């Protein structure tokens, strides 16, 4: 299981979204690393790329709206990290489709995605949660 209780930042809706993201990334990592022919795993890769492009946008939008409501001082920095990630995923989805979902490229994305996601939740999002606590703001 990829998700750990310690990743919770104490903002219920965002925690639920993170848990869903981790669950889908865990399924993806497990699917592409299990034994079997690569051709049989490509459907899962395509499905995950679609999910990432849709759900990540929904989640990032929610987080950013919440931050704007809070008047979060690091909003711009957080927004820039989100934008860079979205652009990365989009360009990778296009590259994969053009190159026929080559296994090595997909494995590289999965490794990077895993580390990126954990860091983003334990660092950037925890920083936002800390601000909420310090300012005594509402956790929604």
């Amino acid at each position: 299981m990829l998700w750990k209780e310690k990743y919770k930042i104490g903002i219920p809706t965002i925690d639920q979204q993170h848990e869903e993201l981790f669950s889908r990334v865990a399924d993806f990592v497990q699917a592409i690393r299990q034994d079997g022919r690569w051709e049989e795993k490509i459907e899962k890769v395509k499905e995950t790329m679609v999910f990432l492009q849709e759900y990540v946008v929904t989640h990032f939008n929610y987080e950013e709206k919440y931050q704007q409501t809070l008047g979060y001082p690091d909003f711009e920095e957080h927004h820039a990290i989100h934008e860079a990630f979205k652009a990365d995923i989009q360009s990778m989805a296009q590259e994969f489709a053009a190159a026929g979902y080559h296994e090595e490229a997909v494995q590289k994305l999965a490794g990077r995605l895993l580390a990126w996601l954990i860091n983003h939740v334990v660092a950037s999002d925890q920083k936002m949660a800390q601000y909420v606590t310090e300012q005594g703001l509402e956790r929604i």
Partner: protein
Amino acid sequence: MKAEYVNPVFKAVTEVFKAMLDIEVSRGTMGAIAGGKQEVDIQINVIGDVAGSILFQFPQDTTLNIVQIMSGMEIKELDSFVTSAMGEISNIISGNAASYLAKTNYHCDIMPPKIAVTNAAVAPQFAQETLNIPLHTNIGDMNIYISLNEMK
């Protein structure tokens, strides 16, 4: 080399390992690092007010343990998934180090990680002065080489 360049890197490593892996990092001892025949070398070039390179050397066992903690899966070899995850961790550490440097008014950017799997721990041959920081954790040792110079 100025401590102002070295301390941010050490601070970033200890914080990232604690936050992402729940692992404490301490200074290790000089000499060959144990932990498997192969190792993952990740070089991050730095440009700006401070320029040069940071090289992370992760022995095989340390690497497998790190990725196992992150993925919750058994990891047996240094494949593309594993080395790419290590590249991202090194990228995160270097990015945080660059942010700490910016707070002391040294503004720099980091380049994408260059990842290699090598068969033996060899000290890098950087053109500039290089400082080696051996590090120890309870899941294995690692080495960081820092070669940074002021360009202002």
